[in-house]
């Protein structure tokens, strides 16, 4: 590998390394191509933000489920039939009037991938990881989320094997919506805490 200051490594260098790695892993019998492809398929087809959206929509419509979710999210999400990998215990933190939550992993890029799928690139980049613990309001503002003055912003640094997900507040104007319909309002970023759910008028 040849580091070259601030320049990005060319994709071809990463591609060559990845191809060589897969060749030696499979030819030596350490992992199979089928196992690699099964993981890719799982994340391309079955696991993603739509899973978290179902959890949030259920919590918005079922107060008893919401209570179980906030008490023991790892167990509660199992009540919903969907494909997920519970690779780590899950903690769900609720937004409420006056309190906004946002999730980060400053040491690597821990994320509830088994539920929400692959994390966005910016979540893994140095700018977000370094800054959101020190200046969360500035970072959220740059990302288009302005918090009301006087609100508390709670930052959760996933420094151990717990994974954090934000339970956003239900938007106004959808009181009579079903959980299935509500799920369409729930964005990936609203479950990280860097955005809000869509408004009914936005879908």
């Amino acid at each position, binding site marked *: 590998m040849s580091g070259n200051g601030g320049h990005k490594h060319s994709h071809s260098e990463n591609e060559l390394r990845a191809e060589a790695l897969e060749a*030696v*892993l499979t030819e030596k019998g350490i992992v199979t191509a089928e196992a690699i492809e099964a993981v890719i398929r799982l994340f391309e087809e079955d696991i993603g933000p739509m899973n978290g959206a179902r959890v949030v929509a259920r919590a918005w419509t079922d107060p008893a489920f919401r209570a179980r979710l906030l008490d023991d999210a790892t167990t509660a999400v199992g009540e919903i039939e969907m494909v997920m990998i519970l690779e780590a215990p899950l903690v769900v933190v609720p937004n409420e009037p006056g309190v906004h939550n946002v999730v980060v992993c400053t*040491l690597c890029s821990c994320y509830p991938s088994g539920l929400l799928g692959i994390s966005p690139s910016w979540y893994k980049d140095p*700018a977000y990881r370094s800054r959101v613990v*020190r200046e969360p309001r500035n970072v959220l503002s740059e990302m288009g989320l302005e918090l009301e003055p006087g609100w508390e912003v709670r930052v959760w640094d996933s420094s151990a094997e717990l994974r954090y997900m934000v339970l956003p507040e239900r938007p106004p104007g959808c009181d009579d919506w079903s959980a299935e319909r509500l799920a369409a309002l729930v964005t990936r970023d609203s479950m990280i805490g860097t955005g809000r759910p869509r408004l009914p008028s936005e879908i």
Partner: protein
Amino acid sequence: MDGIHDMGGTHGFGRVSPDSDGPVFHSVWEARVHGMGYALLAAGGANIDAYRHAIERIAPRDYLSVGYYGRWAIAMETLLVERGYLRPGELAARAAGAPVSSGPVDVAPEPPANGFFRDVAADPRFAVGADVRVRNLHPAGHTRLPGYVRGKRGVVTRVHRACILPDTNAHGLGECPEYLFSVRFDSVELWGDQAELAAPVSVDLFDRYLAAG
């Protein structure tokens, strides 16, 4: 270790570049590396703590330039070499077109971790509401103690079950489970008078990182 990976609170990385939801994987090689990482861990080629520590040991200039999945690939090579599955330089030779030097190897998998929680006999040292202070620890090996909370005072907000200790497990020194505490730090305690107010940070910290505050 005090390394480039320990980014919390550091300056100089510029603005966040938000993206849209986009495709799940941005390129084929990233998807393949993602699949390889999960498959290697599932096959017992390494535990997650050793894997994270291999990422942390990437030279800082490479850590910053190869991107997320580039780091995964380098870390996998490091682990495979350290465990004797690959010779140093073998991967680069392969990338340059050389044939694989040896046939199948006997993988001696580590048993799957079976979760992270463990039962320990002792009671937790701290209860919810306890004042704690983070010890001034600088181990050269793996740790999950972010540098920005060292020496800082906080309050325990949640007591979790004992968990596998990454500091030992990454180095093959056993699971050594310890209680895990969620600790909330006031923003002024962390960042001084210039801090954004009403912006507490919660960090999950193992028993050995903490002293009564």
